[in-house]
C-alpha cells in the first residue's frame, strides 16, 4: 500500500512538471494552431540558467531563499526574452504562410536552442549544488520531501492562477478572443500581435519555472534535457486536449501518474515479461487509446480542421 501511495506521489510531482510545460504548448496551439516544438528547449534553457545562477550564488555562500528567488527570476527573465524573440523573429514573419512552414521553423528553432546551449554550457551533465538537506515527511507510509510538496503546490498555484487569469483579466479575454477568431478580434480592436507575443512570454515564463523545478528535483541539467521533457509535455497536452488549458493540467498529471505506476507495476503484472523500461511504451499506448476514442483529447472540444 505504501508503495502504491509512494508511486502516486512520484507520479503527481512528475506530472505537475509535465503539466507546467504542457501549458506552454497548449496556449500557443490554442491561439496560433502552431505546435511550438522549441518550447521544451526553452524550458531547458530556463533550467540551465537557474542552475548556473544557483551554482554561482551557492559558491558565494548566500542564503538559500535568496538563491532560489534569484535563480527563478533569472530563468523567467531569460526565457521570457527568448520566447519573445523566437516569436518575433521566427514565427511572426510566417503568420500568413502555409501551416507547414512555421512547424518546420519550430523544429529548427529547437535545434538552434539546443546547440546554442551546448556551446554555452558544454555537453556534459551539470550538477545542481545541494542547497539544503532534504526534509523528509511521511504520509501513509510513503516518504516524500518538502521539495516535492512545494513543487506540487507551486505548480497547482500557477495553473489555477493561469486559468483565473485567462477567464477574468482583460488580457485573458483578449487571448480567448484571439483564439476564437484572430481576424475578427483584430477588427474589434484587439492588438493580436501583442496578444500572441504575450502568450509566448507567459508560456516561456511558466516553462522557466518548470525548468527550475526539474533541476531542483533531479539535481542535474543537460543541454538535451528539453527534448524528452518537451515530448512528454506535448503528449500530455494532446492527451488532455491540445488548446485547452485545463486539459493540459489534467493530461500532465495523468501522464505522470501513469508513467509512475507503469514502471512500478508493469513487471509484476506481466510476470517479468516487460520490465520498467517499457514505461514510455505504456504511456504512449494510453495516448493512442485515448485518441482512438476521443480524437480531440480528454477535455478537447471538436474543432474541425484544427484537431
Amino acid at each position: 500500500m505504501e508503495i502504491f501511495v509512494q508511486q502516486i506521489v512520484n507520479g503527481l510531482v512528475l506530472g505537475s512538471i509535465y503539466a507546467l510545460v504542457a501549458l506552454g504548448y497548449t496556449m500557443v496551439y490554442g491561439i496560433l494552431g502552431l505546435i511550438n516544438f522549441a518550447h521544451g528547449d526553452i524550458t531547458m534553457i530556463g533550467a540551465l540558467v537557474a542552475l548556473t545562477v544557483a551554482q554561482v550564488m551557492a559558491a558565494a555562500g548566500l542564503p538559500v531563499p535568496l538563491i532560489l528567488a534569484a535563480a527563478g527570476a533569472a530563468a523567467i527573465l531569460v526565457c521570457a526574452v527568448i520566447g519573445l524573440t523566437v516569436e518575433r523573429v521566427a514565427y511572426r514573419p510566417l503568420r500568413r504562410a502555409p501551416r507547414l512552414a512555421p512547424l518546420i521553423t519550430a523544429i529548427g528553432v529547437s535545434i538552434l536552442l539546443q546547440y546554442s546551449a551546448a556551446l554555452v554550457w558544454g555537453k556534459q551533465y551539470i550538477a545542481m549544488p545541494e542547497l539544503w538537506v532534504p526534509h523528509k515527511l511521511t504520509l501513509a507510509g510513503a516518504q516524500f520531501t518538502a521539495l516535492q510538496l512545494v513543487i506540487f503546490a507551486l505548480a497547482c498555484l500557477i495553473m489555477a492562477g493561469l486559468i483565473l487569469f485567462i477567464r477574468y483579466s482583460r488580457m485573458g479575454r483578449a487571448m480567448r478572443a484571439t483564439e476564437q477568431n484572430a481576424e475578427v478580434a483584430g477588427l474589434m480592436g484587439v492588438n493580436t500581435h501583442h496578444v500572441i507575443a504575450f502568450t509566448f512570454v507567459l508560456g516561456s515564463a511558466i516553462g522557466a519555472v518548470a525548468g527550475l523545478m526539474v533541476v531542483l528535483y533531479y539535481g542535474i541539467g543537460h543541454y538535451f534535457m528539453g527534448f524528452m521533457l518537451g515530448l512528454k509535455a506535448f503528449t500530455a497536452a494532446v492527451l488532455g486536449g491540445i488548446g485547452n488549458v485545463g486539459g493540459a493540467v489534467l493530461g500532465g498529471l495523468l501522464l505522470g501518474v501513469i508513467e509512475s505506476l507503469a514502471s512500478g507495476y508493469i513487471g509484476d503484472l506481466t510476470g517479468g515479461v516487460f520490465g520498467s523500461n517499457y514505461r514510455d511504451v505504456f504511456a504512449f499506448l494510453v495516448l493512442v487509446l485515448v485518441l482512438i476514442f476521443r480524437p480531440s483529447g480528454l477535455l478537447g472540444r471538436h474543432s474541425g480542421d484544427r484537431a
Partner: protein
Amino acid sequence: MKTAFLKPLLLSVAGSVLLWGCGKEPAPAPKPAAKPVQTVKIGSASPLTGPQAHIGIDIRNGVQLAIDDANAAAIEIGGKQLKLELVAEDDEANPTKATTVAQKLADAKVAAVVGHFNSGASIPASKIYSDAGIPQISPSSTNPKYTQQGFKTTFRVVAHDDQQGPTLARFAEKTLKVKTVAVIDDSTAYGQGLAEAFEKTVTAAGIKVVAREHTTDKDTDFKAILTRIKGKNPDLIMFGGIDPQAGPMIKQMKQLGIKAKYIGGDGMQTPNFIKLAGDAAEGAMASIPGLPKEQMPGGKAFLEKYKAKFNQDVELFAPMGYDAVMVFIDAMKRAQSTDPVKFLPEIGKTAYQGVIGPIAFDDKGDLKNGPITIYVVKEGKWEPLETVSPGAAAEQPPAPAAK
C-alpha cells in the same frame, strides 16, 4: 550537426600534434646524418562530445601523451626513426557513429587503433578493423563479447565483465554478506553485460535477486523503479551503467529513504559521480579493473606527467590508453616493422611492463590476470577498499589493498 562544428576541433587537435611534431624535429638536426623518418598514424576513438566526453577525452589524452613520449625517445624501427601521429576521432558513444569512425580511421590508413571506450562502440567497430587488418586495443571496453568474435585484431588492457561482474558478486557475498539484491542496468552492452554477469554469480551463491530493473543511458528520473525496489527492501542495489545515471540515482535513493548499499562497475568510479551525487555519494562502492591509479607500478609518475601536460587530473582510463600505444610500439620493435601485417602477430606475444602493471594477452586478446579493485566513497573521495586478482579470487579471501 554535431560533427559539423566538431570537425574543426579535431582538425586543430590533429594539426597541433602535427605542428608540435614539426617543431620538435629540428632538435636532433645537429647530429650528423639524421635518420630517415617514418611517419605512422595511430588512431584514437572515444566519445569526445556528449555526456561521456570527459572519459573519452581522458583516453585521447593518454594516447597523446604516449605518442609525445615515443616521439621524444626517437625510437628506431627497421633503420628508420619512428614518428607517430595521432588521429583522434569522436564516436559520440554511439554504436552507429563508431562504425563510421572506424571506417574513417581505416581509410586514413592508421597502423593501429586505441579504442573505443564503450563496449557498444568497440564491438561493431572491431569488425571493420579486423577486415582492414588494423590491430585494436580497447583501453576500457569490458563486455566479454568484444574479444569472443574470433577476430585476430582485437585486444584489451582491462579485465572484462565476466571477471568484473563476478568479482563484484563475490565481494557482495563474502565481504558485504548481503542476502538480497536488486539489479539495475542502463540497457547498454556494457551495463547489461556487467549486470548479467553479476546476477549470474550472486544467484549461484544463493543470494536472492528481488528486483531486476532497466533504465536507459539518457534517463535521469529513477524514482519509479527505485520506489518499486524500496518495496522489495534489498540489502544491496547493483547498477550496471555510467556516472550520469549512477549519480542522480543514488541521490534519488536517499531521497526515497532507501537504506540499501549501492555498488556498481568502473563506469561510475569517477570524480564526476561524486560531483553529480553530492553528499549522497558517501558509502557508494564501485569496482574498477586494474590497480588504484596511485598504486599502479608507473602510476605516480604518470599522474604527475599527465597533470603537467593537460592541467587536469586523470579521470579514469588515460593510463590504459597510454599503455595501449606502448604495447603497439613494443610489438613494432620486436617485428622491426610498422606494417600491421608484420607486427600484429607480435602483439599476442606481448610481455610488457606498463603503467598499469604487467601486460600479457591470452589467446583471445584479453588481459591476463587483470586485477580488479573495489573502491568506496569516503568523505567525498574514492578510496580503494580491496584489490582482487580474478585468478585468485575464486577461493581465497581477497587481500586488503596496501594503503
